[in-house]
């Protein structure tokens, strides 16, 4: 598919686990040749942890791995061998971008830090994304999504003030600021290189990149000297604004009223009850002030109704409402989500695999969406086609254990 917008880009991807590989997913789906450089000597853990089909012992079938590595190629190389490292350098010579999310000085031990990479390929764009960045007194500190979200301050503004700072059930930074900011930085650096011929180094500290998602929290402190508290499900700009208990076990519907027009629509949708006409609910300020009672009143209306019926009714009146959906809901109830976003991926080792589709749609461009690569699936292609190594030499590399 040579007409894809990134089809002339090649990425040597040393990323592992989640944040690194997820950053290059968008490149692969839009046509870039993204080559995972990995090893069976030290298998990328994400190939084996998390959701796995029962009874299949393979590094190719884990759900998360397959989700974040669509349309990529895999090459196995033991970088701790001289020939292995030298092959990696040959691949870098013909690449546009080199990415990694190792902690500390892993890349420089291989001689693959930016200074060295630039000697191999002067206009290379290199992305490094350790938790703390590439310098500073804590540069060697380690952590994963659970730690970064706590350190960066998102736990501090999530949950109820009287409860522990619960954070989120997702290892959020691994899926949000870190891969996405990395992709944005890489795309902008590519455009700069195309215009000027100059490569550059991108130092993404996952800690900093997640702090950049705090919204107004920093300014609230630096301009107003206020440390933002955990707001529960409240918003400073909307009321009602919460999830409301619905009929059934643990069923909830979120409702958010942004302005007076929507408040009027909500009142109409719920049958203009008397309580709603009281002056204590007549303006946003008033509703914010009496939010607890207001939430109780709305709950008494929602609790005897089904969540999806409430959502449909309110949305038909122009009110923002949405069911708190879990995985089962997304797969069995929200047929639109399944149709527009969930891909049934054919896989040689598993009967059924469900993968999140590409989130970005571009007119007249059909993004690629190939299965994530089996471990080492493209060794022959990369060595033969890209590096021009002949078959017998490739055989030797297999025998000597360089390609493991």
């Amino acid at each position, binding site marked *: 598919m040579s007409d894809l917008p990134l089809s002339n880009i090649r990425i040597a991807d040393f990323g592992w686990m989640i944040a690194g590989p997820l950053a290059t997913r968008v490149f692969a789906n839009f046509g870039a040749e993204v080559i995972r450089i990995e090893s069976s000597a030290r298998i990328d853990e994400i190939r084996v942890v998390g959701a796995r089909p*029962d009874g299949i012992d393979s590094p190719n079938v884990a759900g998360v791995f397959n989700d974040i590595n669509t349309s990529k190629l895999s090459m196995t190389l033991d970088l701790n061998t001289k020939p292995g490292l030298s092959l990696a350098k040959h691949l870098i010579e013909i690449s546009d971008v080199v990415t990694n999310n190792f902690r500390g000085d892993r890349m420089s031990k291989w001689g693959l830090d930016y200074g060295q990479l630039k000697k191999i390929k002067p206009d290379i764009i290199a992305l490094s994304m350790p938790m703390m960045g590439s310098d500073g007194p804590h540069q060697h500190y380690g952590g994963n999504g659970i730690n970064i979200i706590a350190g960066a301050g998102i736990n501090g503004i999530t949950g109820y003030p009287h*409860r522990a700072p619960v954070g989120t059930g997702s290892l959020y930074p691994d899926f*949000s600021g870190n891969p996405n*900011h990395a992709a944005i930085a890489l795309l902008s650096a590519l455009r700069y290189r195309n215009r000027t011929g100059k490569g550059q180094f991108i130092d993404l500290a996952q*800690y900093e*990149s997640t702090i950049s998602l705090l919204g107004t929290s920093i300014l609230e402190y630096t301009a107003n000297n206020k440390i933002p508290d955990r707001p529960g*499900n409240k918003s400073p700009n909307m009321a009602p604004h919460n999830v409301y208990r619905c009929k059934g076990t643990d069923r909830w519907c979120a409702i958010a009223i942004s302005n007076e027009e929507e408040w009027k629509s909500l009142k109409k949708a719920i049958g203009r009850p008397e309580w709603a006409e009281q002056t204590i609910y007549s303006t946003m300020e008033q509703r914010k002030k009496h939010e607890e009672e207001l939430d109780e009143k709305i709950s008494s209306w929602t609790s005897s109704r089904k969540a999806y019926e409430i959502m449909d009714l309110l949305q038909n009146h122009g009110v923002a409402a949405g*069911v708190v959906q879990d995985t089962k809901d*997304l797969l069995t109830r929200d047929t639109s989500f399944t149709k527009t976003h969930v891909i049934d991926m054919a896989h040689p080792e598993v009967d*059924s695999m469900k993968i999140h589709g590409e989130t970005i749609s571009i007119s007249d461009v059909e993004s690629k969406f190939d299965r994530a690569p089996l471990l080492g699936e493209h060794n022959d292609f990369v060595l033969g086609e890209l590096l021009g190594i002949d078959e017998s030499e490739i055989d030797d590399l297999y025998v000597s254990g360089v390609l493991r």
Partner: protein
Amino acid sequence: MIDLTGPSGFYCAKLLADLGADVIRIENSGTAESENYAPFYKGEKHIDNSLYRWHFHTNKRSVFLNLQSEYGRDKFFDLLNVADVLITTEPDSKIVDVKLGKNEIRSKYPKLIHTVIRAFSSNSAYSEYKATDIIALAMSGLMAITGFPEDPPNQMGGEQAYHMVSMHGAMGTLVALLGRDYTGLGKDVEVSMQECTSMATLQTANLNYYNWQNLNRQRTGLNHPFSEAQSTENPKHYPRTLYKCKDGWVSYAAHLAPPGAWKRFLTWLEDYDSQQDLKEPKYLDPETRQISQLHINEVMASHCLKLKAQELYHSAQSYRLLCVPVQNVNDLITDKQLKERGYFVDLKHDDRSESFTYPGAPYKLSKTPWKIKSPAPKIGQHTEEVLKEWLALSKSELGFHNV
């Protein structure tokens, strides 16, 4: 770039503006009311004091155009002629004011990239449904796994659905720009809050947990959200993720500890005489540790209660243990690492005597660094400047329509 977005797209345009794009917001007399978002500087409710505006509109310029007037629409179309990118949000779009259909944009402005940030996919049955941040968090599956089981599901703080969709919108815009560099053709780019936010669930609530094991992930409070042992039969096997300490909380991801971490963990506990019985050889066996997870949690919990968050943090990290405190804004502002790397930036507001400290670069690019050059504009502050620059209009042509 022309930024015609509502809140779900603010960060998208900011990302591009902070990387050097010339982003102009089209605003008018209604903006002061419709976008008067809290919190406010010193609590004084006025659009110029909106910290929301300060934060999300850095580096942008504001052009006053009433898109419901003919003059406003004409000038808007002229701007579209010379713009590279138009960013709008749906379904609350202001683009309806200019009475320009989607297909019309494509045919009239073939080079323009039009990025549309939607609540739900345009192919969804919910395409016309409205969503604020909390609605998208709910519908995406992220809220169902956030909070304590005994509480209602929690929203994440800081409007993360807006951030997720905005980042994907910026990625899509840049992909389309790179493509246009070769083809000369603009594109329509679409992202939806529901789909983009759902990406954050793909580990703990991977679709295949349900597909393969009928496992329907729910919120787990302080227990690790994707413990291998998570099952209703054996809830005790959860490792914890957060521990209370003397002056706050620390996160500790024992579950994900690198190989060899158990011994380093014990050494760390021993330094504070917190090890209890964990030195017994039976705990060297990972399976024993898994069955004894609840006990290990308790040992760790009493260890943490003895110490302050910052001491736990630095001592654990010296043993390469993955421990980081729950930090608030004050912790961040005073953090040595952030200070040394110059993360926070001070920005002078032209109309005020003080400078204010803003969050800094999400990434450090060595050649094309992220930078805040100017604070959020006043409504219409750059009308004359932009119309002159972009459309080469003279002062007399601008006439009385200016404001």
